[in-house]
């Protein structure tokens, strides 16, 4: 088998396979949306340059959100899994994953008492946080924003955090 054509075949078939596999991945890299490094994004690729998708919630920086957190002027919603929440979360955050909350009405009532709700997840694209933010807006909450840089940027900045299972369900595995 000749090496040159074989190499070309490997690269071409690999490129096709890779793009198809990416499209089928549960968390695909969004082709067409630039991805900048964490350092260049100032805390996370949620802050990637370029227009946000139409469904995306407005972003809030870690510095601004941390100041509001310390002044108790914002409520925080953690949209990650219960296990990730138990490992570490924004201090006093409400655990509200996309699958729902055991006492959704009580959680929403608690959030309504705040002028601003900040939603975050652990994923660079903030897709999960955007979904939860949209749900909160549909539930009638006014100012809902998504944390730029997600949980990794919050943790890296040393902003207020706590660990432990969700207070409502008690154990980490009680809800997804």
């Amino acid at each position, binding site marked *: 088998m000749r090496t040159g054509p074989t190499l070309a075949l490997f690269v071409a*078939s690999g490129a096709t396979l890779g793009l198809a596999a*990416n499209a089928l991945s*549960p*968390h695909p890299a969004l*082709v*067409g949306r630039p*991805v900048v*490094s964490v350092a260049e994004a100032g805390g996370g690729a949620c802050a990637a340059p370029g227009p946000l998708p139409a469904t995306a919630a407005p972003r809030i920086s870690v510095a601004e959100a941390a100041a509001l957190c310390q002044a108790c002027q914002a409520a925080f919603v953690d949209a990650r899994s219960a296990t990730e929440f138990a490992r570490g979360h924004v201090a006093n955050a409400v655990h509200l994953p996309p699958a729902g909350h055991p006492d959704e009405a009580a959680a929403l009532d608690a959030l309504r008492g705040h002028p601003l709700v900040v939603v975050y997840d652990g994923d*660079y694209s903030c897709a999960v946080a955007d979904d939860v933010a949209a749900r909160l807006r549909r539930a009638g909450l006014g100012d809902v924003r998504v944390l730029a840089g997600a949980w990794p940027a919050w943790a890296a900045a040393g902003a207020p955090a706590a660990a432990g299972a969700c207070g409502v369900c008690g154990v980490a595995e009680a809800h997804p």
Partner: protein
Amino acid sequence: MRARAALRMALGAVFAWAALSKLPDMAAFAELVANYRLLPPAAVPVFAAVLVGVEAVVGVALLAGLGARAAAGLAAALLLAFTVALAQALVRGIDLACGCFGGGDSASWWTVARDLALFAAALASAALGPGRLGPRPAAPAAG
């Protein structure tokens, strides 16, 4: 002969595993690629996807012994590129996860050494040929 085949298949398994481990979270892998700060941001998602696909094809080709010399050569070229990318990041003081096998393991000079060892193995496989696991076919009996 069997040693060459074992080397080829071990290398194939490493590449196949490297590709498979990234598939569940390609978005995170794209971010790890961006952290190397070698590519324009717009090119990162496509590059990440293509890289995983090429890794998978190289892995399968080495495991199956199809175009094995070319696959080993391509593996060597990829590993050399990975080594250079890792080394430049470490020299520039960029603190990043390697992204080699989909996880968040930190890049270090140990990672560079591992990639160099794999590069040497790939070069050897390309130079020595694919080898065979089974016995050599019997020569036709002399008439």
